[in-house]
């Protein structure tokens, strides 16, 4: 069956360091992969979208990689700040681009001063 896995345990890092979050998937051949941020009690906020033919995408301090051979995406936050503390969700489009998203359970990131 189809499955998306993210680090189940919280990730604790020191301010200024780079946070790296992992998203692995099985039994999918997604054309797109998206990353969202979610704060407690709020809806997810879109961060980045990467296509299957893109190896890497950057936006300010954020970087996403997409390896369709390994079936894995890595999400990096450089020079992390306490304000980056949140849950980060990985999502695959299960409808060829029509926004039927399948989400992972998310990884909680805590950045400590």
């Amino acid at each position, binding site marked *: 069956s189809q499955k*998306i896995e993210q680090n189940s345990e919280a990730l604790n890092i020191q301010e200024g360091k780079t946070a790296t979050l992992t998203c692995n998937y099985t039994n999918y051949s997604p054309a*797109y992969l*998206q990353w*969202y941020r979610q704060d407690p*009690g*709020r*809806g*997810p*906020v*879109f961060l980045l*979208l990467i*296509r299957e033919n893109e190896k890497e995408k950057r936006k300010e301090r954020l970087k996403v990689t997409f390896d369709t051979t390994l079936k894995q995406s890595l999400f990096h936050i450089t020079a992390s700040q306490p304000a980056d503390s949140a849950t980060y*969700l990985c*999502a695959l*489009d*299960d*409808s*060829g*681009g*029509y*926004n*039927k*998203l*399948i*989400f*992972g*359970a*998310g990884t909680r990131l805590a950045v400590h001063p």
Partner: protein
Amino acid sequence: DAGVTQSPTHLIKTRGQQVTLRCSPKSGHDTVSWYQQALGQGPQFIFQYYEEEERQRGNFPDRFSGHQFPNYSSELNVNALLLGDSALYLCASSLFGVTSGITSTDTQYFGPGTRLTVL
């Protein structure tokens, strides 16, 4: 420019009751998707509406139904509520069609959610 809005913010119901949740999409968007998010889990796709019709559906029973109005706003109805229906219900709006991935309008914008508690 208002983003996605949802009402109510919180709701408490008892088992067997029926509930209606409402969503107004972001200005310019024509497609509304509904997700259910249980505590500690990622959102799960319920269904999607475009041109007042259900276009895609996730693995949810018929107790979950919806509607989209001509102004693109949408309702989610859940009948015969179960304890397991307690969750954060999220509405997301987007433009219908294949994601081009070039502009931010291709992606989904989520509302703040409605927290439903079933006692």
